[in-house]
């Protein structure tokens, strides 16, 4: 019997490693790969997340069909308990492997904070329902992928590039014959195609790092006390069929309590299915081999959530009340004009309701155009994607962001629809634009404008340049009906600092209140 479980414990480790490798593989593959259609379901981690499915469904008050894979894992949890947390979750696997570097963490023993995750979950879901969607703040996968995509992965590239630039520029030729092939292999396999730059890079890293620092307080601190996905699974594993059974009259060793990474074993050696993630350490390491897992429920204590009614009601009340303060902000009356959402974005309220801040669209954006918003969409909209055209532009023939969005906050557009989906409009600043302000020829913007009939046109004009000479220049202007707001003109404007042509959300199709002035009907 013991031997069999020993295999299972190692099986758990193998499963953790495999799932993590798969996670990293899909993360790296969240990129253009020679065709506009992604060959892998790179967003699957978010689509199996029941917490995000619940939150986005409540926020939009519709059942999101795209999130159906989460039901599979809910179903499995009814049978197996929180196996996901122990066997699959990439965040959990990372925390487990980090454990040896945080040796002072207290272990075992039931955590006094372990009910916090339930209150958090209730608050999050109720707030989402009433219009404050903040699931992405605390969801472990959102935190993990954002930390990787916005910070660690670009940093890896900085590291590799600076090293190989150093060897290339400073080292003798024979070293380069060794290093250059290595660099080529790295570039072809794990390194990103280009160096991306992100807003909130440090912030995303800090949030991720905080979860690891909390390991010093307690092993799997986040999983035990905070994780809302774990909380959802705890609710369902209350009914799970597979239960661990500890030895009740087994002596005083309490080894199992000490080694339990989830603090799921109490003084009477009852194993709570609410917290147990089936890591199987206790089975394997019990000196008396008294612990086993089985589908028979006989003699197994039924777990209790031990929630305090007062705190539960408070989190419910706060969740219900807080959203009503959103409309007191100026942005309810006057949204940030530079907040341009990616093509296919739903109207703002629905968009924020569905957006789980996973960072997938920012990772996949081949123009490095999508950036996490800081406060431009309000505190509640932090980390939601915005197109920041001075950093990068929306590629005319690309629809990748809509393909990776796990919740449909960005709708998947056909190329034909994408070509006409207006997400904003550009405006020229004639005080800075060279042909207007200085009489210097330029129109780089017109050259790059991608619509088949160019939205940026120019007029020949005679102007005085800074030397007082009369010169003929081509002065650009925008035809609003053609401009789709891709922002390439702002990206490519050769002026230092701010561009002389700026993208705003004016005229975006998803918000009729944002319509541009016209003199006649457009049709």
């Amino acid at each position: 019997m013991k031997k069999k479980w020993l295999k299972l414990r190692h099986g758990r480790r193998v499963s953790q490693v495999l799932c993590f490798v798969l996670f990293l593989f899909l993360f790296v593959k969240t990129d253009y790969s020679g065709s506009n259609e992604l060959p892998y379901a790179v967003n699957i981690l978010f689509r199996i997340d029941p917490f995000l499915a619940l939150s986005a469904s409540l926020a939009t008050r519709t059942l999101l069909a795209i999130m159906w894979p989460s039901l599979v894992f809910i179903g499995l949890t009814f049978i197996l308990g929180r196996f996901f947390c122990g066997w699959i979750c990439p965040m959990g696997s990372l925390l487990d492997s980090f454990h040896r570097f945080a040796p002072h963490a207290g272990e075992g023993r039931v955590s006094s904070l372990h009910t916090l995750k339930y209150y958090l979950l209730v608050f999050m879901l109720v707030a989402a329902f009433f219009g404050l969607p903040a699931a992405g703040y605390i969801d472990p996968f959102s935190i993990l992928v954002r930390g990787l995509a916005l910070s660690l992965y670009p940093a890896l590239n900085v590291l590799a590039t600076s090293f190989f630039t150093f060897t290339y520029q400073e080292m003798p030729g024979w070293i380069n014959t060794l290093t250059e092939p290595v660099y080529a292999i790295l570039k072809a396999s794990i390194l990103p195609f280009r160096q991306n730059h992100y807003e909130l890079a440090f912030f995303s890293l800090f949030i991720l790092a905080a979860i690891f620092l909390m390991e010093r307080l307690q092993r799997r601190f986040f999983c035990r006390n905070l994780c809302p996905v774990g909380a959802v699974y705890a609710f369902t594993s209350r009914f799970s069929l597979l239960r661990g059974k500890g030895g009740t009259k087994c002596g005083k060793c309490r080894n199992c309590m000490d080694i339990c990474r989830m603090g799921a074993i109490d003084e009477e050696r009852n194993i709570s299915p609410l917290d147990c993630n089936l890591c199987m350490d206790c089975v394997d390491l019990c000196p008396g081999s008294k612990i086993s897992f089985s589908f028979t429920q006989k003699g197994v204590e039924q777990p209790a959530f031990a929630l305090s009614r007062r705190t539960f009601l408070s989190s419910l009340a706060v969740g219900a009340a807080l959203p009503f303060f959103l409309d007191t902000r100026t942005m309810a009356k006057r949204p940030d004009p530079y907040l341009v959402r990616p093509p296919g974005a739903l109207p703002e309220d629905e968009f924020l309701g569905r957006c789980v801040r996973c960072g997938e669209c920012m990772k996949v954006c081949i123009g490095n155009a999508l950036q996490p918003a800081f406060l431009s969409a309000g505190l509640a909209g932090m980390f939601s994607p915005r197109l920041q055209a001075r950093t990068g532009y929306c590629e005319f023939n690309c629809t990748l962001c809509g393909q990776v969005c796990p919740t449909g906050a960005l709708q998947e557009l056909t190329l034909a629809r994408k070509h006409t989906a207006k997400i904003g409009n550009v405006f020229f600043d004639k005080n800075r634009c060279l042909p207007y302000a200085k009489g210097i020829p330029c129109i780089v913007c017109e050259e790059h404008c991608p619509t088949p009939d160019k939205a940026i046109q120019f007029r020949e004009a005679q102007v005085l340049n800074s030397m007082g000479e009369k010169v003929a220049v081509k002065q650009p202007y925008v035809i609003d009906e053609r401009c789709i707001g891709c922002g390439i003109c702002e990206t490519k404007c050769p002026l230092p600092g701010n561009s002389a042509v700026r993208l705003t959300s004016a005229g975006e199709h998803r918000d009729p209140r944002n319509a541009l002035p016209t003199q006649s009907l457009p049709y």
Partner: protein
Amino acid sequence: MDRRNFMKQVLLWSAGISSTIPNFRIGPELLAAEKKSPVVSHAKDKNYYALVARVLEPLGGINKFVTTGDRVVIKPNMAWDRSPDQAANTHPLVVKALVEQSLEAGAKTVMVFDRTCNEERRCYVNSGIQQTLESIKDKRLKFYHPDSRKFVPVNIERGKAVNRLEIYRDALEADTYINVPVAKHHGLSKLTLGLKNSMGVLGGNRGSMHHNLGQKLADLATVIRPKLTVVDATRILLRNGPQGGNLDDVKILDTLIASADAVACDAFATTLFNMEPDEIASTVAAYNMGLGEMRLDRMKIIQA
């Protein structure tokens, strides 16, 4: 490390680094050489692949330009995320034929690259050039994306509008540089031809080239001197250039133009658009700097 030693190290290292900045210069004796009237060859055929050999014939064939052991750069225009029929990029078959002929002529390596305007990988794929060149199974062919480490600052000694540019190292070090532009409309310069195509080897902020584009392209042409220019006019873009996107703006000509004289090639290609060579500022500027011929009556124009 003491102060003296430190200072010594600093001086030595900075001297070493600054001496590695290459300095390309074209001697006046070379420029003053007697100018013969340049041969400009043009040919028309539906078979673009065969057309390349034909248009090169009056110039002496590829062997006149590529000799055994040469490092060859073939620089097509693949700047835009557009398909071959949209006429924004050089036709893949033209590139393929030039690559294969250079390999047959005994080139040591044939390098094909462009610094694109749209996303690099999309341009390489959707121009059709990537798939076409993948069919050539020869290790000497290097088809790659420019490596940002390899742009080197170059002093443009004869520059009138620009005196320093970042240029891709492989383009500078090539034994034979073959320029393969596509002929098309351009808002600012009216047309983009061979001289404009050379911008694809520039690093840095290329937009500033647009401020006095004609002269700056001529300045660039003093250091990027193709041994051979093949203008792809199999399809030309008449409006909404340089990227087009609308097939109504494309005109099928099935024509290639080739010359060893980059300026003459551009000047003759201008006539395909019913324009005169002196309407293109870069052609005029390059001619005035003695970089080539622009007067059609001084060229030997041969229909192959």
